[in-house]
């Protein structure tokens, strides 16, 4: 083992040790959203994420992902569940929000609410805000065919 290897090894190990994972499974009811957001905010606050990332980027984007999962994916049916996996380390937060719906086309469904024809619409800002406020938004099917939206936020 050459001494030159140590810094890299140490930092890789630190990265693993510093990572924190929270997992959550809730019935589809929008009344849970705020408390779930607060729990993940607490997790990120412990990882020194700044106030703006907690109160704007994370709070709004996660609220959008959860309400879409509850209302769109699961049709507001409390018998269906939403699963949340949040992994945070000093570099980034990655959240996966899984619903029991059939999924959707992320690009097709994302509107631009800032065009003159859209700016006074009442809906259609959710995916747009998620993509503006997160560094990365992805959608995929998990192994069981359930819809997953993955949000990534780089710590600043």
């Amino acid at each position, binding site marked *: 083992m050459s001494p030159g290897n140590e810094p890299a090894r140490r930092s890789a190990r630190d990265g693993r040790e510093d990572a924190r994972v929270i997992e959550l499974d809730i019935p589809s009811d929008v009344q849970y*959203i705020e408390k779930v957001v607060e729990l993940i905010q607490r997790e990120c606050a412990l990882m020194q994420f700044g106030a703006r990332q907690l109160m*704007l980027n994370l709070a*709004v984007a996660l609220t959008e992902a959860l309400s879409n999962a509850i209302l769109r994916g699961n049709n507001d049916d409390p018998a269906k569940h939403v699963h949340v996996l949040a992994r945070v380390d000093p570099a980034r937060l990655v959240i996966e929000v899984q619903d029991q719906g059939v999924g959707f086309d992320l690009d097709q469904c994302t509107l631009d609410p800032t065009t003159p024809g859209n700016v006074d619409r009442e809906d259609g800002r959710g995916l747009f805000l998620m993509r503006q406020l997160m560094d990365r938004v992805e959608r995929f099917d998990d192994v069981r065919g359930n819809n997953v939206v993955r949000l990534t936020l780089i710590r600043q």
Partner: protein
Amino acid sequence: MSFAITKEAEVVVVDVEGQLIVGNRQELKQKVLDELERGEKKFLIDFSQTGYIDSSGLGVLVSLSKKIREQGGELRLANLNDDLKTLFELTKLDTLFQIADTRERALESF
């Protein structure tokens, strides 16, 4: 999360305490529509005690602004913090609403 309604001179002032999100936006909508039905015309929504707003909260504000205008009334917003300002700018809703820095300025502007 609650909505405190007070009357200052001719203006109905609503303080949004906590979040304005999918779980409680209907309550705000109903409270303002009730006042509108009672004949009130001037509305100010004050966000000094607000945490965050989601897209459905923004949607309720858009809907209320239309309904108030239809009745010949006016809606003003006040006291957006930096995070909320960003939210309105990202969605260009800062071009749709009349937004004042302080409650006093908003009240004067009617």
